[in-house]
């Protein structure tokens, strides 16, 4: 089944010269693609170079943010959570440092997703699948898992050999060690997830004491399982078969997009090269397969841009290493555009065209949406008033003939301190308002609104006992903060009997 059984009789043959030709097949290349095919295990070889370093740094940053972000404290005052980033489902709040989102402001999250999508569009049209290659969780965790695998079982050749080896004690201990480490990482991944939904220092010991809520264990279990299987055994299949993004971004890249590219104009015709032979009349590619051996997706970059390629750039490092050995210029594989290959083939100077109608459009829309969302976030209201009319009964006739309507008022205070707000009902002369526990003067009262909460208040509005006035009329409930001058109002209707 595995590549190992078929191809690794002699892993490294000499390709002449001093560069080994890797005995490796691009198992997932389009030419070999067929339906109902069992997965062929891939044993990516470790490379060294600029992009490998860059990817280690990105891996450290992204994992560091994921694991440590919930532990950052952010004091918000008494009764408020002091976790910088927290999705508080029971309290129905989302906290992000100085931002606090209420459920009715979920459009900020929508806006954030739109910004993220546009950012992805822009990045993809400029630099191809940088998201896939560097920052996608699937790529980052798979990279981490391969690093663990390499630590325990060794690099490509050793892993290939181990796969063929009989089940000795040494092999069993290596496999057990690897899977144990993977499971620890997976459990830590699932564990970190729940810290975003609970106070991290509180729930951390609870998880081990069996005191955490069931949902926490459920999500730790789900994410442990997905991390372990996605990064441990499914790997490139997630990208190729499960992820929609590779299909979408084909529409986002064009001939001027910088992508991980094998420069055919320089590489072809390829072929083995013996040390000391002339480079005239042939390409720089010595067909050593180093790029294929390094590829975690099991493809050959020399086949051109393809669905499976996540643009992780590891083949660039692999090839640069070889080019250095054979004394040819680096970046036979590098970030380049389709247009530049055509330009060089036509004898023109290659160039990078970052400003194109597509990228400019994405950038402008991105700037507009970001600006709009930021502006609305900065100017959002800190209080609201909502009025719900009593429906049964719609009105009440009192013994003196006056008419009374009941309303439930919801006073929303998004500020983190309690506020004394002036509530006023207007719409007709001589209205009297009353509410249990509140002192109204005519139609006006000062209401204390608790911090960061909604206060519900049922009020009764009564007209003067003058039957000639009886007609339905519009009513306005106004809320005013005497300190800041901010106002909020809500229209409603005063109903009376038809005579």
């Amino acid at each position: 089944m595995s590549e190992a059984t078929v191809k690794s009789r002699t892993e490294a043959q000499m390709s002449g010269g001093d560069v080994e030709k890797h005995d490796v097949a691009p198992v997932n290349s389009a030419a070999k693609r067929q339906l109902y095919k069992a997965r062929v295990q891939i044993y990516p070889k470790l490379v060294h170079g600029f992009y490998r370093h860059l990817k280690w740094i990105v891996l450290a940053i992204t994992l560091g943010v994921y694991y440590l972000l919930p532990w950052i404290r952010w004091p918000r005052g008494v009764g408020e959570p002091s976790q910088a980033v927290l999705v508080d489902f029971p309290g129905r709040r989302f906290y992000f440092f100085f931002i606090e989102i209420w459920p009715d402001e979920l459009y900020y999250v929508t806006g954030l997703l739109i910004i993220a999508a546009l950012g992805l569009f822009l990045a993809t049209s400029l630099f191809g699948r940088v998201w896939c290659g560097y920052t996608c969780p699937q790529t980052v965790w798979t990279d981490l898992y391969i690093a663990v695998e390499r630590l325990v079982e060794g690099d490509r050749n050793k892993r290939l050999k181990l796969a063929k080896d009989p089940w000795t004690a040494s092999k069993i201990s290596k496999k057990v060690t690897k899977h144990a480490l993977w499971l620890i990482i997976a459990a830590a991944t699932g564990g970190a997830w729940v810290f975003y939904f609970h106070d991290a220092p509180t729930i951390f010991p609870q998880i081990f004491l069996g005191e955490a809520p069931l949902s926490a264990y459920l999500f730790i279990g789900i994410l442990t399982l997905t991390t372990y299987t996605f990064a441990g055994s499914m790997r490139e299949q997630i990208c190729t078969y499960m992820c929609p993004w590779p299909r979408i971004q084909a529409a986002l890249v064009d001939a001027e997009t910088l992508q991980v590219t094998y420069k055919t104009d320089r590489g072809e015709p390829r072929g083995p090269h013996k040390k000391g032979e002339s480079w005239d009349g042939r390409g720089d590619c010595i067909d050593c397969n180093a790029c294929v051996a390094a590829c975690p997706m099991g493809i050959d970059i020399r086949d051109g841009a393809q669905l499976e390629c996540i643009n992780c750039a590891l083949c660039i490092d692999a090839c640069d290493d070889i080019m250095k050995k054979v004394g040819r210029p680096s970046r036979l594989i590098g970030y380049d555009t389709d247009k530049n290959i055509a330009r060089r083939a036509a004898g023109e100077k290659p160039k990078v065209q970052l400003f194109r109608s597509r990228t400019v459009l994405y950038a402008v829309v991105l700037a507009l949406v970001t600006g709009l969302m930021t502006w609305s976030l900065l100017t959002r209201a800190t209080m609201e008033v909502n009025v719900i009319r009593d429906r049964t009964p719609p009105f009440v006739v009192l013994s003196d003939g006056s008419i009374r309507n009941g309303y439930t008022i919801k006073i929303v205070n998004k500020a983190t301190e309690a506020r004394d707000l002036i509530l006023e009902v207007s719409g007709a002369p001589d209205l009297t308002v009353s509410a249990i526990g509140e002192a109204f003067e005519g139609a006006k009262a000062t209401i204390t609104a608790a911090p960061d909460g909604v206060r519900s208040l049922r009020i009764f509005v009564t007209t003067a006992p003058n039957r000639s006035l009886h007609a339905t009329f519009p009513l306005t409930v106004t809320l005013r903060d005497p300190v800041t001058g901010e106002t909020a109002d809500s229209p409603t209707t005063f109903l009376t009997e038809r005579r």
Partner: protein
Amino acid sequence: MAEHEIDEHSGVATTGHEWDGIKELNNPLPRWWVWTFYACVAFSVVWWVLMPTWPGISGYTKGVLGYTQRATVAKEMAALNESRSASMQQLDNVNTIADVENNPELLQYTMAAGASLFGDNCATCHGSGGQGGPGYPNLNDDDWIWGGTFADIKQTITYGIRSGHPEARFNTMQAYGRDGVLSEDQIGDLVEYVLALSGEQADPAAVERAAVTFEQVCAACHGADGKGNHLLGSPNLTDAIWLYGGERATIYATLKNGRAGVMPTWAGRLTSDQITALAVYVHSLGGGE
């Protein structure tokens, strides 16, 4: 049966079924499916033993766990009452409406409990919002027949009106016409008198004629000024609110046939704390005195 051909591509025998050149392979059931099936069979046997399963002529197999849905509900109800008992017990000490209104937390709890109880027990007659209907008083307004203080309301809920309970509120609006106490003419004049009392248009001559009858017959309960009396449960005839309706025909029917509305007693059906919660809720609807 003839031997089936072997599929060239997969090496699996075909079933011999063919549709438009597409042949069905005779693959075995997937292993995971077979084992899931066996597991389900094993599970069902365990289930038969543990849980009520097989119907019989006059009953069913009970299962060794003795599970029933009714027992589960009873347990959940008991647990619910247990969880509420601490809050409900606070109502033991409520004697005046101020005891609740000055305690915002208790007020919120009592209102929620009262609204829930009202919906379950009272809304059938008084309406979901306590708006009432002909013969069923509107509990939102400020007109009370037996009194609108917290204590009055609590007593009415506890013992009811003409409920048969020894402590029930009771009075009689006699069938003056049907019993022959008053003549048709006298009743007709009284209808005009009652309308005039609440400021409606009425025949002045009839009002004048009825004045003496009112004083002799009606004033005993409704008072000389017609303003009624909470102690006797006699409605105020001068206000804008009518229990049965303020049209001439309805007032005539009241005088002719009498009225004897019934409200059941809730003592024994609801706990004292529940009645307190209901009294607070009804008091808060807007007309509490």
